């Protein structure tokens, strides 16, 4: 995948639509990232912490039972086995090492399901940074365990009561904090969204998922997968795995929740610093997303996904909450793996489309584990 344009555009998407106060900070971040990313010392530092702390490389697991049942070869990229239980740690270790290199003492982060918040709190503890996490009040309720984990790790968690009280409002509040504290603070954004350079930088930090998977597929099967599937909220795990296969003939599928289908049901709009597909009303007010999974409860999507959709390189179907709940249980029972509700979206699409995927090799990014969702599933399914 290529770099965005100088103005931070992927095609007509992306950009840097932020208050004037933040422009110098975004420019400084872009220059620092560019310099660090070209520096073998920084790359070596990041590689060793990914290997010795986060547990990379993550393995591939073939789902023999489930594959046989669906009539295809289903291979999982096991990001759920990373330290802190999801792919989020890749980006967070990159950004916090960069923040330290830039002389920042404090990070702020937004979180939906709590995965990015936990990863941020973890990296801040490791590197001795102060950490504050903004989380929508609705999500604080449904992800109480992750809230406590963040506190155990020494982070301050603030419940956000404005707007829809979910992920988009947590982003607003984190940006407001950053506007006030920009001189000492780095905003550790958790997805491939926001103003330039975030969509590009966060993609680069997650590219390791796709690069590893491509090599692992070649080593084990001697070929690329036919289809690569990942769930999409902001789209960081999807862009991470897509980036390893965008130059192959593999079909790339990003699965959105039906209640948060930015690409599927949105129009181009501008929020959170970027121009991208966005769910909005007839006056441009941003609509609230609704999904069983807090991590995908986001009305927008990263600008590079909008670009990949616009040129037809990737497709973005959506699945319903009930399909997701079915898929979640199916994976647990047939493979002994409890997936995050977010990733169950990817599986739900595979299950639905299985008749058209007979005999194919499908690589799915299992971007997080489902421990955090067990309480919520207990309520949904009854004990």
């Amino acid at each position, binding site marked *: 995948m290529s770099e965005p344009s100088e103005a931070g555009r992927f095609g007509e998407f992306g950009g*840097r639509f932020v208050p*004037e106060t933040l*422009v*110098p900070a975004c420019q400084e971040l872009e220059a620092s990232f560019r310099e660090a990313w070209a520096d073998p010392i920084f790359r070596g530092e990041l590689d060793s912490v990914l290997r010795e702390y986060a547990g990379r490389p993550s393995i591939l697991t073939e789902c023999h039972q489930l594959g046989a049942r669906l009539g295809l070869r289903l291979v999982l990229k096991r990001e759920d086995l990373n330290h802190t239980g999801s792919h989020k740690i890749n980006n967070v270790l990159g950004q916090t090492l960069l923040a330290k290199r830039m002389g920042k003492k404090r990070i702020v982060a937004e979180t939906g399901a709590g995965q990015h918040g936990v990863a941020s709190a973890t990296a801040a503890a490791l590197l001795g940074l102060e950490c504050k996490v903004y989380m929508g009040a609705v999500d604080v309720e449904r992800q109480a365990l992750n809230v406590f984990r963040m506190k155990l790790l020494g982070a301050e968690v603030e419940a956000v009561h404005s707007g829809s009280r979910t992920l988009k409002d947590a982003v607003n509040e984190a940006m407001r904090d950053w506007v006030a504290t920009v001189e000492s603070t780095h905003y550790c954004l958790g997805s491939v969204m926001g103003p330039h350079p975030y969509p590009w930088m966060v993609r680069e930090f997650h590219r390791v998922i796709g690069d590893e998977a491509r090599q692992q597929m070649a080593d084990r099967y001697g070929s690329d997968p036919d289809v690569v599937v990942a769930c999409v909220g902001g789209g960081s795990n999807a862009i991470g795995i897509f980036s390893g296969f965008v130059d192959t003939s593999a079909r790339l599928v990003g699965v959105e929740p039906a209640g948060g289908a930015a690409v599927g049901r949105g129009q181009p709009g*501008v929020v959170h*610093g970027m121009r991208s597909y966005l769910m909005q009303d007839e*006056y*441009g007010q941003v609509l609230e997303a609704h999904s069983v999974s807090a991590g995908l409860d986001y009305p927008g999507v990263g600008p590079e996904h909008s670009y990949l959709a616009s040129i037809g390189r990737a497709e973005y179907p959506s699945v319903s909450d009930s399909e997701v709940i079915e898929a979640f249980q199916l994976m647990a029972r047939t493979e002994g793996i409890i997936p995050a509700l977010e990733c169950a979206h990817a599986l739900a699409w595979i299950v639905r489309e299985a008749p058209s995927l007979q005999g194919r090799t499908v690589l799915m990014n299992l971007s997080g584990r489902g421990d955090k969702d067990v309480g919520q599933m207990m309520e949904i399914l009854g004990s």
Partner: protein
Amino acid sequence: MIALEEHLRACRERGRKILVPYVTGGLSGWEAAVRAAAASGADAIEIGIPFSDPVMDGPVIQEASQRALDDGATPVSILQSARSLDVGVPLVVMCYYNTVHHPGHQRFASQLKDAGISGAIVPDLPLEESGPWCEAADAAGLATVMLAAPTAPDERLPRVCARARGFVYSVGLLGVTGERSALVHTATALAARLKAVTDVPVVVGVGVSNAEQAVEACRVADGVVMGASVVRRLLEHGPDVVGDYVSEVRRALDGV
């Protein structure tokens, strides 16, 4: 439509400090508050068009925006009401960029023009992204007020000022809109840096919270925007108290 910059330059030439109260459009009593402010010595009035995700606003204006949206306010309904205000001072809208982007630059510019609006402030549209909107606004004769922030390096300020029409909005502090107990040092420091590089009127906003702070800012700047302190009074007490407050600030500024 009254030409914003001409009007404000005329104020300055008369030795009058520029007072720009901000009122959230669509909030209960907002039209009466605009009339009261105009009658009490405002030189221009900023009308906020509420947005679902106001990242530059603190709790007071967030609450006002949410209430207005809950009451069904839309950009179209607010502009329709603005058309009949006719208060004798220029009206400027403050809106987030998606409100402009959604209808399209030219269409939004002509909507503003039809409503008798003199200009626009778009706080999440920085210099580098402002081209297409500014072109449409210029063509429609609308003034685009640019924001300048305390974080800007020296080389950036003249470029921001060169693009500013009407006035330069000198952001008073690092942070979002809202009342503060004191005017921070950066408010006058940035105003002085701007005055040194531009002839466009320099107006300080964000964190100017009472008459005393307005006076302090105007020892350097050409004027002030008063936002949260006005909107809080409208939320708590209604339009009459807004008029009283604007008069109080006016009297204080006239003594500078």
